[in-house]
C-alpha cells in the first residue's frame, strides 16, 4: 500500500529523478514538477501530503510556492520541506520564516531525505490521529453536555410546582444548583387532616451522583409519609433506605417537619441539616421576631443503628418558615468570612410580605453579601407562609 503522496519540485531533472526513485522504492507515491507554477498545476489535480521543493527555480521559485501553499487555507496543512543549496543558519531561518516546516541543505544524501520524509509522515499520521481523537472527544463532550441538560431539566421536574400551595399555607423556592445539576432536594406534601409534611435535604458531593441520590431521598420521603407517622418515623425509615442503597461516602443532611394546623404545632427532626428559621408573624412582612428551629441528629445514610430525636415548636397562622441548604450561607468571601446562620437570620427577620418577594430579597441580599464571590455549592431556599 502506498504510504502517502509526495510532490517533488526541482528545476534539475536529475535531482527529481533521484528523489523519485528513492521515495518510490520506499513505498511513497511521487509527483514531480520543474517549478512553482507546475507544482501548483499538479496540486490542482491531486493533493499531496508533503511537498519537497527547491528554492531557486525559474517561473516561480520555491519561496513563492511555499508562501502560496501556506497562505491558502485549503493547502496550509500540507507539509513543506525546502531543499536549498544555501546552507547555514541564516537561510535555514529564512526558509522556516516563509512558513516551511523543515529544510534540507543541498547537497544531500538521498537517505537523509528519505529519513526526513519518513519522520514527517510519522508526524502527519500523529496529527491526523490527534485530529480524529479531538473530533471524537468534542462529539462525546457535546453528548454529555446534552445529557446533563436533560438531567437538569428532569431534576427541576422533581421540585414542587410553583406557586406552591397546601391547606392553609403558600410556599415558593429558589433552586440554584452549582453544576447544572445538584444534590439538593425538597418536598412539601399535603397530609390527611390538613397537615403538611415537609422535607429539605442536601446530598453530599455534587453532580450526577448527588442528583441521583437526591431523587432517591425524595422517593424515600414520599414512601415514608404515605406510611403515616411523624418526622421521627420518617427519619428512621429514610435512614434505613439510604444506608441500604448508597455507597460509603454518600449521605444526606435533612430537615423533616410536620405541621398540624389544628394544634399549631410543628414537629421536626434535624438530621445534620442547617436549622431552619421560624419568623413569628413573618408572612405580614416587616421586622419580626425569629427563632432557630434547632435540634441535633445524625445525617441520613450513615448507619442504620443511629438514633434520631424529634423536636417541637409552635407555628401559628401568619408565621413564616425559612428552609435552606448550607450553600446559601457557606460562601467564603475574599476576607474569608461567611454569612453563616446568624447573617441569614438577620436577613430573614425583616422581609416583605409574600413568599415570592421574600425569596427574591433573600437571594439578592446573600448575593450582595458574598459579592463578587459566586455561590459555589448547590443552593436551595424555601419560604413557606402560613396564612391567617
Amino acid at each position, binding site marked *: 500500500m502506498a504510504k502517502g503522496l509526495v510532490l517533488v519540485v526541482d528545476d534539475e531533472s536529475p535531482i527529481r529523478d533521484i528523489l523519485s526513485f528513492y521515495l518510490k522504492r520506499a513505498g511513497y507515491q511521487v509527483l514531480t514538477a520543474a517549478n512553482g507554477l507546475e507544482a501548483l498545476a499538479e496540486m490542482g489535480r491531486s493533493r499531496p501530503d508533503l511537498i519537497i521543493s527547491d528554492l531557486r527555480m525559474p517561473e516561480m521559485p520555491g519561496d513563492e510556492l511555499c508562501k502560496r501553499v501556506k497562505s491558502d487555507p485549503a493547502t496550509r496543512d500540507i507539509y513543506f520541506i525546502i531543499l536549498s543549496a544555501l546552507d547555514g543558519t541564516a537561510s535555514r531561518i529564512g526558509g522556516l520564516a516563509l512558513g516551511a516546516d523543515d529544510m534540507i541543505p543541498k547537497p544531500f544524501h538521498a537517505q537523509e531525505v528519505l529519513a526526513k520524509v519518513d519522520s514527517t509522515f510519522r508526524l502527519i499520521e500523529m496529527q491526523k490521529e490527534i485530529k480524529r481523537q479531538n473530533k471524537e472527544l468534542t462529539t462525546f463532550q457535546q453528548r454529555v453536555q446534552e445529557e446533563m441538560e436533560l438531567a437538569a431539566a428532569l431534576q427541576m421536574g422533581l421540585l414542587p410546582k410553583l406557586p406552591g400551595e397546601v391547606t392553609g399555607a403558600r410556599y415558593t423556592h429558589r433552586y440554584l444548583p452549582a453544576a447544572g445539576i445538584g444534590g439538593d432536594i425538597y418536598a412539601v406534601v399535603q397530609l390527611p387532616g390538613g397537615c403538611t409534611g415537609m422535607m429539605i435535604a*442536601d*446530598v*453530599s*458531593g*455534587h453532580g450526577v451522583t448527588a442528583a441521583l441520590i437526591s431523587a432517591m431521598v425524595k422517593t424515600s420521603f414520599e414512601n415514608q409519609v404515605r406510611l403515616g407517622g411523624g418526622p421521627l418515623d420518617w427519619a428512621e425509615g429514610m435512614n434505613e433506605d439510604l444506608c441500604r442503597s448508597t455507597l*460509603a*461516602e*454518600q*449521605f444526606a*443532611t435533612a430537615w423533616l417537619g410536620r405541621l398540624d394546623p389544628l394544634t399549631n404545632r410543628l414537629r421536626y427532626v434535624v438530621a*445534620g441539616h*442547617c436549622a431552619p428559621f421560624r419568623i413569628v408573624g413573618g408572612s405580614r412582612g416587616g421586622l419580626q421576631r425569629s427563632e432557630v428551629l434547632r435540634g*441535633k*441528629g*445524625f*445525617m441520613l445514610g*450513615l*448507619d442504620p443503628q*443511629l438514633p434520631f430525636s424529634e423536636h417541637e415548636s409552635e407555628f401559628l397562622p401568619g408565621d413564616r418558615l425559612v428552609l435552606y441548604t*448550607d450553600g446559601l450561607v*457557606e460562601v*467564603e468571601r475574599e476576607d474569608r468570612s461567611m454569612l453563616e446562620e446568624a447573617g441569614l437570620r438577620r436577613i430573614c427577620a425583616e422581609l416583605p410580605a409574600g413568599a415570592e418577594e421574600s425569596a427574591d430579597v433573600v437571594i439578592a441580599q446573600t448575593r450582595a453579601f458574598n459579592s463578587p464571590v459566586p455561590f459555589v*455549592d448547590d443552593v436551595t431556599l424555601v419560604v413557606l407562609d402560613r396564612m391567617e
Partner: protein
Amino acid sequence: MLNIQTRQEGTASVVSIQGKVNFEVTAQLRDVIRETVATVQPKLLTINLEGVSFIDSSGLGLLVAARNSVDKSGGKLHLCCLPATVKKTFDQTNLTNYFSIFATEQDALRGS
C-alpha cells in the same frame, strides 16, 4: 490543594491534613487513607485536622467512610485537633458523637 502527611507511631498511623477539605480534593485524601489502611493495617488511625480551615459534606463523607473501613479491619479511627470552624460543622451534623475526638495528638494516640 491539600497538604497531607503520614507517619507511623508504633502501631498507629497518623495522617495530618492541611488546607480546605472539599469536593475537589477528596480523591487525593481518599487515596492516602485507603493506601495507609491497606498497606499498614494500623490498629489505630489518627487523623490530625489541625490545619483544616474548612470541611464540606464530601469531606465529612470521606471521614465517615474511613471510620467504617478502619472498623471493618478491626482498627480504630481517632480524630484530633479540630479547629473551631471544623468543630462547628461536626456539631451541626452531630458527627461529634459519631467519632472519637481528642484535643491533642498525644491524647488521640493514647486514647482507646
